[in-house]
């Protein structure tokens, strides 16, 4: 007896589009609204929708808690590491001018990497918070 067949099929339809939209928000942030934080929240929302429809156990196969907890400090490390690399290249902390041969390209690369760091931290924090809340008070 599967009462929520329609929910499952609907969720299967919408999940890839949520992830695609998160990537659009992430990489189109230079031209439209959005950026790392919003994309992180949206992609975390995808995992949470998956957990709501298919159960938390299935969601932990998709996003294992170990990986999620690595993501929380990992993004900050990516961000700070960008700064350190730019210092090693002989510029100020978080001055991206040394990343490419040209000013504009270098700064676009820098913004991209830094936004990926933000995405990883925000996404990991949201999913880890959801797991922690959901596990609390059971077992």
């Amino acid at each position, binding site marked *: 007896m599967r009462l*929520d067949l329609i*929910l499952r099929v609907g*969720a299967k339809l*919408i999940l890839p*589009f*949520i992830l695609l*939209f998160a990537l*659009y*928000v992430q990489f*189109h942030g230079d031209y*439209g*609204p*959005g950026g790392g934080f*919003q994309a992180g929240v*949206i992609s975390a*929302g995808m995992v*949470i*929708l998956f*957990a*709501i*429809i*298919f*159960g*938390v*156990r*299935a969601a932990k196969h998709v996003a294992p808690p170990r990986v999620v907890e690595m993501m929380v400090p990992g993004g900050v490390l990516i961000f700070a590491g960008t700064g350190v690399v730019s210092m090693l290249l002989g510029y100020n902390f978080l001055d991206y001018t040394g990343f490419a041969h040209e000013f504009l390209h270098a700064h676009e690369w820098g913004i991209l990497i830094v936004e990926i760091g933000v995405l990883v931290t925000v996404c990991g924090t949201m999913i880890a918070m959801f797991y922690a809340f*959901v*596990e609390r008070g*059971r077992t």
Partner: protein
Amino acid sequence: MFYVATGAVLAALMLAVIRAIRGPTVFDRVLASNTIGTLAILLLASYGFLTDRPEFLDIGLTYGLLNLIGTFAVLKFFRHGDLAHDIAEDQEKSRWK
């Protein structure tokens, strides 16, 4: 033209908010909240055309995609009393009983 659209969406928004405030059961509120999500998308679209800047429909898309998460979360909480409830686990248990 966009004036008419924005005005109508705002009027519908007001009526839906009144229903959300008055709604006797939780399901009325969820229904009103879902409707307000749809109306907010329409408001963003028509207001963008009204102010000559329709490029910001991304926010409407965000609404549309994420409104579903909130609705499903509330409804699942009502159905099972718990967001972590796993239907597959239930089925396994009933098979072994």
